[in-house]
């Protein structure tokens, strides 16, 4: 049964002779067919024209930043092609060890034999625990954050505020911010299934800004006046506190490589550590390493 709109559209068209109308239809449809046939070939031939390729694989937390850096860098150096892949820190470090990727991206410190690799820290990432600006709470213990997100501490009344159930906002599974939060706050325990899930820092901030009873976490660089960042055990997530790691919820982002980077690889690493690269990272919410 056709929708009425389609029916009226057909009835309104000129009563063209059969073959003529068919021809019009074919003319409109042919490009799609051609597109279908050409699509796979077109992609390959285009990438073959590049002179040097670079593969950055690893942490999903570093991935969006690496993609941003690669995009700007490729724009400035059209002769270089940089592929950024996810897979996790360990996979990235492994890929760098094996030489499957020129650069591994890691959001954790290197351990054990991994320390033989070239380790290039590129930025600090702080995670701010945020509440609604009207929330009188200014400081919170790390232990209490864990109990809130475990679903054990469920009411603001237990923290000495006006009693009201706490609305917990978390990030989706696979998110780098969530991975870091779990690592730094939750330890081995899981975030309660009752927590609301949002799929970006911005969405978490929006929800917290609108809900006076909520608590969430976002990258420290993205805190704005809509929300209030809490001090954790008395330390606020300021730029300085993140840089000297007095603030507890901080990790470093690294690039790792097997040999000291050379050629196109070195040029990209230099770009990341240059004032421009560091500025880009700061604009995306990180704290530069320099």
């Amino acid at each position: 049964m056709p929708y009425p709109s389609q029916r009226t559209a057909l009835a309104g068209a000129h009563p063209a002779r059969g073959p003529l109308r068919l021809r019009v239809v074919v003319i409109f449809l042919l490009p799609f067919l051609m597109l279908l046939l050409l699509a796979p070939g077109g992609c390959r031939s285009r990438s073959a024209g590049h002179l040097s390729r670079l593969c950055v694989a690893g942490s999903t937390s570093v991935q969006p930043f690496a993609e941003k850096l690669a995009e700007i860098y490729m724009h400035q150096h059209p002769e270089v092609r940089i592929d950024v892949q996810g897979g996790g820190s360990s996979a990235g470090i492994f890929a760098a060890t094996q030489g499957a990727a020129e650069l591994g991206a890691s959001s954790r410190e290197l351990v054990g034999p991994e320390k033989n690799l070239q380790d290039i820290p590129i930025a600090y990432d702080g995670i701010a625990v945020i509440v609604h600006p009207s929330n009188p709470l200014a400081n919170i213990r790390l232990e209490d954050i864990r109990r809130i997100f475990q679903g054990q501490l469920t009411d603001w009344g237990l923290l000495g505020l006006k009693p009201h159930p706490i609305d917990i906002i978390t990030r989706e599974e696979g998110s780098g911010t969530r991975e870091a939060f779990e690592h730094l706050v939750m330890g081995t325990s899981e975030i309660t299934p009752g927590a609301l899930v949002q799929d970006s820092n911005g969405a978490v901030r929006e929800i917290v800004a609108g809900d006076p009873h909520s608590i969430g976490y976002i990258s420290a660089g993205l805190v704005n006046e809509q929300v209030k960042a809490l001090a954790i055990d008395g330390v606020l997530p300021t730029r300085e506190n993140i840089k000297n790691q007095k603030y507890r919820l901080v990790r470093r982002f690294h690039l790792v490589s097997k040999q000291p980077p050379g050629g196109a690889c070195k040029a990209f690493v230099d770009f990341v550590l240059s004032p421009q690269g560091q500025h880009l990272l700061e604009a995306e919410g990180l704290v530069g390493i320099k």
Partner: protein
Amino acid sequence: MRTQGKFIERVLFLLALSAVSSLILITVFIFMEGLPLIVHTGLGNFILSTHWAPTKGHFGIFAMIVSSILVTLGALALGVPLGLSCAITLAEFAPSPVRRVLKPALELLAGIPSVVYGFLGVVWLVPLIREHLGGPGLSLLAASIILGIMILPTVISISIDALTAVPDIYREGSIALGATRWQTVRRVVLPAASSGIVTAIILGMGRAVGETMAVIMVAGNALKLPTSVLDPVRTLTSNIALELAYAAGRHREALFATGIVLFLIIMLLNFSATLITRRR
């Protein structure tokens, strides 16, 4: 002219074939990506467990199946009475100037992108629920209301088609026997159009089950089994869209497996819609 016609016929047939084959490709792809995980965790564990922590090796989607069903039922509870009364009014009672304005307006509703519905939900409906009914606002209720509005165009236009397809002889006969207009509609037109109306409802249902963007924005996406309409819920579609960005390995397979379940549910709905229309 005739050979040209034949040629064009062939080309069109080829194009039609490519459309169908892309459908087959998608189906095969979803199953190839998702089935290994279902085999790995076991069908029972996958469908009947509520523990979803894919990065830690737990892949239970029971809560999401239940949430999908509840959100859809909620949407139908709102959308069907509204849509049906709208369709009856427009097809049977409204004077034609009213119909000429209202019908295109309602069809316009279908053209609004779902992200706009979601946005309206977040800035207007969610705070309303939070302030007046309690809870975080992002909830089963919010998702049901937004979806209920979103399925209106589907329900209304297909129902109107079904109602106008009933021959006027039926109406005239009924009125000649002394029935009022309402009696005619209720006893004669509605039963005659019932299979079309059921199709309208099922297609609306399919739209509600498959909707993603608006639901992600207003449903809250929590993993718990909901205990009230004010609880946040995660549907099957939102699960896939939420986590696909950085999912790898088993996690990615689990999302495709979620897609398989969704695929089967929607196939079932469409199949029953076809069956019902054919039976009459």
